[in-house]
């Protein structure tokens, strides 16, 4: 018996060259199905955290612009006054320069808000729809996308249609944006931090915000286009209608605060119930919440945003009153829209969320400067605006009017009545 021959050593299998890429075997590759099977993945959370960091940085950066400059305000004014008295210049000139500086700062709030909120809206809308939105421009989550788009809009041809009424066509964007900028004068950016302190601040803001609709109607008329005209008329009907519940929903707040001055209204909400719960008007039982919701809904309708965007209504009116606009004129309309969103956010924060007050009465919260609180509340409300916009579909015209005249307006009246009862029996 001979010993069995040892089996010949098997030659090693040839390296599979073809199905390798970057040293990874095809068999080890993740297929698309694997990728979609675990949507709550680590990179997703990492991106989400980066996104949140971007939002917070944006809030702080935008706020620093207002808050840090305001610290130097009094010193600068004193310096200017001293200079004027030394040179024998009248104080009117000092005040004029001072007002110009404040106007410049508030104007930049509006412009920077345009850049910031359009980018934010794109990101929020993208993430709500499981997309990512702008990613490349600027490096960090496409932060520079709005700047690039702005440059594009600057360079775009400014077209006036042949059928247009040239003067009115050119004037309409200015009439939309000018009252919007003017309406920012008494808006509070923190405790006693406003460009102008007006006794009738609330009335002033609502009055100026109402003027913009004239510009919208002018744009619709002057475009020489029936869809634009329809959009302009719809805008007029809608904005004029929603002015009413918007104004009436603030009446309880004015009754509780006893003033139309925005800073008095904000100060009236200082203090805490039982040492914990802030005395914000939104926390006043029933009346506060109803007023808050009516004001929020009416503000969304005022800014022509999606559940109430029948003036624009891309699928029906090809864009409504700004169909025939391009380039900078078009972007002025959008700037005004986002400025109104910011205005409504600041008003909501002032009227219902305690202005620059801290939500909790303890040390780390009360040490935060008032403008950070104000801005955080306003940005939260702006997020609610975007959230609502990208959740709800558009209403029909008759539904829109029904909702306003048969629901919001009666309830805002009832709200005022209940607020009167509160004043009579509870708040004194």
């Amino acid at each position, binding site marked *: 018996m001979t010993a069995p021959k040892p089996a010949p050593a098997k030659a090693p299998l040839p390296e*599979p060259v*073809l*199905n390798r*890429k970057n040293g990874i075997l*095809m068999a080890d*590759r*993740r*297929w*698309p199905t694997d*990728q*979609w099977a675990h*949507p*709550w*993945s680590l*990179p*997703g*959370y990492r*991106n*989400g955290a980066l996104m949140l960091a971007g939002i917070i940085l944006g809030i702080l950066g935008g706020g620093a612009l207002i808050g840090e400059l305001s610290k130097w305000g009094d010193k600068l004014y004193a310096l200017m006054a001293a200079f004027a008295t030394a040179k024998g210049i009248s104080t009117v000139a000092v005040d004029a320069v001072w007002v110009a500086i404040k106007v410049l700062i508030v104007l930049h709030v509006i412009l920077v808000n345009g850049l910031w909120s359009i980018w934010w809206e794109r990101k*929020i809308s*993208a*993430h*709500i*729809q*499981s*997309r*990512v939105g702008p*990613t490349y421009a600027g490096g960090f989550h496409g932060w520079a996308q709005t700047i690039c788009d702005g440059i594009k809009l600057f360079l775009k041809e400014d077209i006036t249609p042949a059928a247009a009424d040239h003067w009115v066509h050119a004037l309409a964007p200015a009439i939309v944006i000018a009252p919007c900028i003017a309406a920012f004068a008494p808006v509070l950016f923190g405790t006693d931090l406003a460009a102008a302190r007006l006794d009738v601040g609330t009335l002033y803001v609502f009055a100026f915000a109402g003027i913009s609709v004239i510009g919208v109607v002018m744009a619709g008329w002057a475009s020489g286009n029936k869809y634009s005209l329809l959009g302009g008329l719809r805008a007029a009907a809608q904005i004029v209608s929603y002015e009413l519940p918007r104004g009436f929903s603030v009446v309880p707040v004015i009754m509780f605060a006893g003033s139309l001055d925005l800073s008095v209204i904000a100060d009236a909400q200082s203090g805490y119930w039982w040492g914990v719960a802030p005395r914000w008007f939104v926390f006043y039982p029933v009346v506060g919440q109803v007023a808050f919701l009516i004001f929020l809904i009416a503000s969304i309708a005022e800014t022509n945003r999606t559940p109430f965007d029948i003036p624009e209504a891309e699928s029906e009116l090809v864009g409504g009153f700004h169909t025939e606009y391009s380039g900078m004129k078009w972007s002025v309309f959008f700037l005004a829209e986002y400025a109104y969103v910011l205005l409504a956010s600041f008003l909501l924060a002032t009227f219902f969320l305690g202005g620059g007050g801290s939500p909790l009465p303890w040390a780390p919260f009360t040490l935060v400067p008032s403008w950070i609180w104000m801005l955080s509340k306003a940005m939260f409300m702006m997020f609610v605006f975007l*959230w*609502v916009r*990208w*959740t*709800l579909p558009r209403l029909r015209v008759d539904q829109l009017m029904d909702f306003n005249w048969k629901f919001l307006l009666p309830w805002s009246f009832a709200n005022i009545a209940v607020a009167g009862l509160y004043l009579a029996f509870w708040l004194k």
Partner: protein
Amino acid sequence: MIGYFSKVYKVAAALVTGHLITLKYMLKPSITIHYPTEKLTPYERFRGALTFDAATCISCSMCVKACPSNCIALENAVSEAGKKVAKVAWYSIDFGKCNFCRLCEESCPTKPKSVWHSLDYEVVFASRDEMVRCWKKDFPFIGKYFDRRTQDFKDPEGQVCIHEVPPRRS
């Protein structure tokens, strides 16, 4: 009155539900792929650009007969004695005609297949000459194209690289 309030409650509850759904989707990672920087690997049976291995091919012309769009052409190699051998002298696929049906691969009798679909979906042809891929001895699997202007074979420019070549089916 009860009907009115229950309707208001139902509508409000529906609105809150909808908003919570969108909030949930906002916090979820997105499902889109950033195409130029991230690329999906197609499924195994994806029919990408055709690739060819001149070393395996026995020059049987089955693929030429199977092709419904008549995009494959080949010529037998001839030995020094003047006899046909089971090798191709040249093999060409006209991607302008190819309809990516996999009939050529199915009809191929060799093991492993000598003509097969890769997973490559990034095929771009910058000129009409590039559409006709040609293979000769020692040409890479993705082949070359014959530039009529300079009268020589060139590597395909539009197809930067084949990202994935699946294991050849036997």
